[in-house]
């Protein structure tokens, strides 16, 4: 288990990639606006989408953990899987749909995969040493508070280097 929270590694990796490869709106050239933050912040979802006018929200949640490689029943390694949740809604401007929530999910998924692949392994002497990979992605749709919300949970496995 890492002595520092792996989100301190994972979030900057995704942020750095996304800042240089911002997904576009429906027109194919206008960049979307987004915010990246840890899960459970004090802001309300509608405030982020309609008050601050972000097109998508990336949140970094708490991990699922399981022990591996038991030696005489003593686990010696904990494998952690971190969820990155991307939330989108349909965004309208002047009566026209400028960003389709479901479509934007695919564009963000593409960039998250590329960003994680790009930094899949730490480069020495960078610490902590790690290996990252996306192990599953699942998109769901729900209607919350009168809004159609699409959520994709990207599960990212974080392997601490030894």
């Amino acid at each position, binding site marked *: 288990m890492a002595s520092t929270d792996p989100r301190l590694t994972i979030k900057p990796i995704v942020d750095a990639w996304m800042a240089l490869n911002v997904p576009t709106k429906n027109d194919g050239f206008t960049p979307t606006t987004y915010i990246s933050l840890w899960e459970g912040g*004090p802001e309300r979802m509608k405030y982020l989408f309609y008050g601050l006018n972000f097109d998508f929200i990336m949140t970094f949640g708490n991990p699922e953990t399981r022990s591996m490689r038991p030696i005489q029943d003593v686990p010696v390694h904990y494998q952690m899987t971190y969820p990155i949740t991307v939330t989108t809604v349909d965004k309208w401007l002047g009566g026209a749909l400028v960003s389709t929530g479901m479509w934007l999910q695919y564009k963000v998924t593409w960039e998250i995969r590329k960003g994680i692949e790009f930094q899949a392994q730490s480069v020495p002497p960078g610490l902590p040493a790690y290996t990252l990979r996306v192990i599953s992605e699942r998109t769901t749709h729900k209607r919350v508070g009168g809004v159609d919300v699409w959520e994709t949970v990207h599960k990212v496995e974080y392997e601490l280097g030894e």
Partner: protein
Amino acid sequence: MATIGPFIQTYGEQATWQNRGLGGRVAPTNWPTETYPASTIYIMVKETQTREVDTPAGRVTEKRINLWTTAALSPQDQIIYPALVGNTYEVESEGTPFYLFGTVWYRRFVAVLTA
């Protein structure tokens, strides 16, 4: 004839309204800081629901109130009732406004006891 807005101001009870504001973002969470500047408002209160919820950390009494006021509260604002010395309630609803006259509105909110 007394109308409801002035009626709440005259016969309501004093409460402290802590209006939630969001400040600058802080690393590493990128969450904004929260501020709660306080002011005094007048409210009328009716307790609506109390129930016991069991959690692994112990039982919690969940108590909700309806409150009427002319102040424009927002969800997640805090109300200390009675003012300064009372319990803290968190506003849970957007509020249902009732128009009276001119610029006078009064609103009904739902709030839950937090501490």
